[in-house]
């Protein structure tokens, strides 16, 4: 038992500091992906509701592809695809040496593309839930299309979209574990390394699971607090 605790301690002998560093990367990757994925998802959602048939078609194809592909496959495609693409352009310009794709950026792009596809569904649902009268009212007040979106639609959108976006966040948090396969030293990567060195797989993967669980449970608590805060003007909904 003491030996196991020693393995989890800080410093040279233990893996505690490595695991913490990995967990920090996991969290930062998820946080870095979130704004980009959500914003892009909102753009896709607006395209879904556009008048142009072409824009709608593009949005549908986009969501069909990125919702249907395994996240692992998307990650490999982005990582290797961009890697090869960058090196080809690098060579085409006749530049010396080679430029490598940072794993963090590849992970961020891949997870962001997937998050955009899934969150766009949530955004579409939220946009549909805002009644027509809101737009008509804004129009009657003489607000431009842009102003209507910024000051009337968007503030109401978050409240409706929040539960769905919260789910997206929880999924994203767990999906980050996949980036360990492109050698990004996240939590999963370090536990794998610790397993190879110490031959204590159950301990380390168990600890990794518990850390992910901690993230999920605290996210869930944070999200419900956020939901309460966002719907504080809507006590009439029944549940507080």
């Amino acid at each position, binding site marked *: 038992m003491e030996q196991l605790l020693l393995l989890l301690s800080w410093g040279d002998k233990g893996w505690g500091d490595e695991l913490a560093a990995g967990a920090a990367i996991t969290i930062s990757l998820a946080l870095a992906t979130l704004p980009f994925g959500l914003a892009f998802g909102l753009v896709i959602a607006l395209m879904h509701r556009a008048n142009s048939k072409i824009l709608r078609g593009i949005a549908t194809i986009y969501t069909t592809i990125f919702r249907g*592909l395994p996240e692992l*496959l998307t990650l490999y495609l982005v990582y290797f*695809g961009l890697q090869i693409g960058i090196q080809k352009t690098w060579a085409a310009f006749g530049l010396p040496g080679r430029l490598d794709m940072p794993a963090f950026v590849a992970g961020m792009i891949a997870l962001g593309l997937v998050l955009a596809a899934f969150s766009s569904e949530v955004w579409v649902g939220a946009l549909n839930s805002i009644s027509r009268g809101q737009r008509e009212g804004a129009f009657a007040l003489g607000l431009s299309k842009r102003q209507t979106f910024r000051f009337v639609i968007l503030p109401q959108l978050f409240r409706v979209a929040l539960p769905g976006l919260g789910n997206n966040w929880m999924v994203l948090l767990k999906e980050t*574990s996949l980036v*360990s396969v492109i050698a990004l030293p996240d939590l*999963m990567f370090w536990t794998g390394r610790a397993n190879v060195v110490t031959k204590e*797989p159950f301990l380390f*993967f168990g600890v990794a699971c518990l850390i992910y669980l901690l993230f999920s449970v605290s996210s869930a608590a944070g999200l419900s607090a956020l939901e309460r805060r966002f719907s504080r003007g809507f006590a009439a909904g029944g549940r507080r």
Partner: protein
Amino acid sequence: MKWCEYPGYWLGVEAIQNYGCRMFTGLGLTLQLVTISVGLGAIFGLALAIVRLYGPKPIGMIVTGYTTFFRGTPLLAQVFLVYYGGGQFRPTLETLGLWTFFRDAFFCAAFTFTLNTAAYQAEVFRGAIQSVAKGQWEAAEALGMHRFPLFLKVILPQALMVALRPLGNELVIMVKSSAVASLVTLYDLMGATRLAFARSFDLSVYFFAAALYLLIVETIRRVWDMAERRLTRHLHHA
């Protein structure tokens, strides 16, 4: 030339032609994994939901803990925990006669996938059962039905109709998540594709795999939609 070499031949991509057979075999393994885990997971998940709703409180809390764990941690970590962690308990597993099971990557993956999807499906079933109106219970009781047939013949059929759509989603999610099996040495579609890429360094194998996954997922989605419309047709009648 075998049938599985034709797609690559038609596309004019050597790598897809060379590894086509491996990839289609991999696709078979993927489908096998998904069918086994989602099928067994449905039975287990339904049992968990019933225990959670009607069982004694302490057991209900254990079920909640189970679903929280499996829904709150990444599938990849779970698979590694079972596959690598199982090896650590080899003597115990050997005496129990379970070692042949946990030694095999396929069984480990199928086992973990089953536990994982059961947790998600338990939540689906729980919500569906709870969505059945209380009046249905009361009416059935008033007719003198006993608890067991009441649940089986009145509540469950109505709950299953509500559960159809989320269950279809879960099936699609498992098809996608099963790609994780390639990380514990299995040559499912993803594993075969990784092998093909490592040897040929031709990115088009990944695009071919993507097309196959999309084909499967879209087929499931459409067939499921049709099945759902057919099964609930008496509700849509206007």
